[in-house]
């Protein structure tokens, strides 16, 4: 039976990018449907009535919501190719921990850099860089967070790199200067087709964030 896979998504969304990367890693064909987040479609509201958010993966008509949960689902259903979570229970728990930590902190930290100014922005930049340094420590000398292989934590984090240019531009700082190992890791990830074909071009992300700043009256 051929699988029918539909992805309700929004091009600049970091969370959507994770799903695009995961689907590409597994070599899966799917139908991409861009959503208007300011005028939500009946399908989106029907498929995600609780949170009304993208991304939503619809697999043979059944919806799956929340990006980290969707990635785990993709990994479990299509388990024979490019496993993302480790097999060992302790390493799985560690991968889940770091993905959860990234989810709890990074999006808001980055968003606050782009929506604030002056001293408040300086504080946000410091917190953001501290967070990235902690992740660098966790990466260590490994090529990927998953070790030798690109894995679950890499999928969770790599989409944020599409926003780095926007953070640096609106925050007037250099991430590479403070976290060179992490930037090296993002470049390594971008050598994978699953990543380079899934992430939105940083300039386009920058322009989207500029639009959001105007919308929120920051400009």
């Amino acid at each position, binding site marked *: 039976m051929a699988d029918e896979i539909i992805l309700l998504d929004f091009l600049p969304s970091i969370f959507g990018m994770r799903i695009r990367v995961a689907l590409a890693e597994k070599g899966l064909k799917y139908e991409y449907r861009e959503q208007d987040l300011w005028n939500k479609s009946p399908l989106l509201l029907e498929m995600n009535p609780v949170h009304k958010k993208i991304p939503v993966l619809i697999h043979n008509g059944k919806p*799956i919501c929340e990006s980290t*949960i969707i990635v785990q689902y993709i990994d479990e*259903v299509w388990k024979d190719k490019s496993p993302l979570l480790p097999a060992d*229970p302790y390493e*799985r728990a560690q991968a889940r921990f770091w993905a959860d930590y990234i989810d709890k902190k990074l999006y808001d930290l980055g968003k606050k850099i782009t929506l604030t100014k002056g001293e408040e922005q300086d504080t946000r930049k410091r917190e953001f860089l501290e967070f990235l340094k902690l992740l660098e420590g966790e990466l260590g000398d490994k090529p990927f967070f998953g070790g030798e292989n690109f894995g679950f934590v890499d999928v969770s984090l790599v989409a944020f790199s599409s926003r780095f240019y926007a953070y640096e531009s609106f925050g007037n700082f250099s991430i590479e200067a403070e976290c060179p190992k992490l930037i090296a890791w993002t470049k390594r990830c971008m050598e994978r087709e699953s990543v380079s074909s899934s992430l939105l071009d940083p300039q386009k992300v920058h322009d989207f964030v500029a639009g959001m700043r105007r919308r929120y009256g920051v400009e």
Partner: protein
Amino acid sequence: MSKQELLLLDCGVSPFCGRVRIALAEKGVEYESKEENVLGAKSELLLSSNPVYKKVPVLLHNGKPLCESSIIVQYIDDAWPSPPLLPTSPYERVQARFWGDFIEKKVFDGGSKIWKSKGEEIEVAKKEFIETLKQLEGTLGDKDFFGGENFGFVDILLIPLTTWFYAYEKFGDFKVEEECPKFSTWVKRCKQRENVVKALPEPEMVYEVVLMLRKMHGVE
């Protein structure tokens, strides 16, 4: 496996620790437990085992730390597969994880807003909290447990949080049983399980802790 290989950094009133205690009991796994003073000075072991959050619960398995209660429960299910806490089919697992995530986002923080608020804010917090419970009632439906016929992952994440509901009811002036009767029935059903009763504190004890927390937060 000897007891010494599993150590739980614990706290009696913490519903997050309660989850781990229940999961370990469901698997019939023996462990040592060390009560941490979470309102006072944190132990060296806690700080070194959980440098990121510095919080309980932490489960040390052969000296290796695991943090974040929902992740610890999943680890326990992976490491001791029988009886399973998560369903076997991928789609049902997704549903369990989704509602587990919903519970994480809404229940404890939503309830905390009730006792942290003053004046009109209490009413707003209470309405949101009841709405959350109604959404959970909707997903429970006519099933005995969130897992279906068997007590499972979502039940384990949620039942310890209900020990804090008595405090929310006192400060919000409402009764969960009146607003969400199906939810109350589920709570009573869980409390018939020995593993649940043994693992959880009395709501009155939690209420005393909330009184203390209110003073600390300057709400009194």
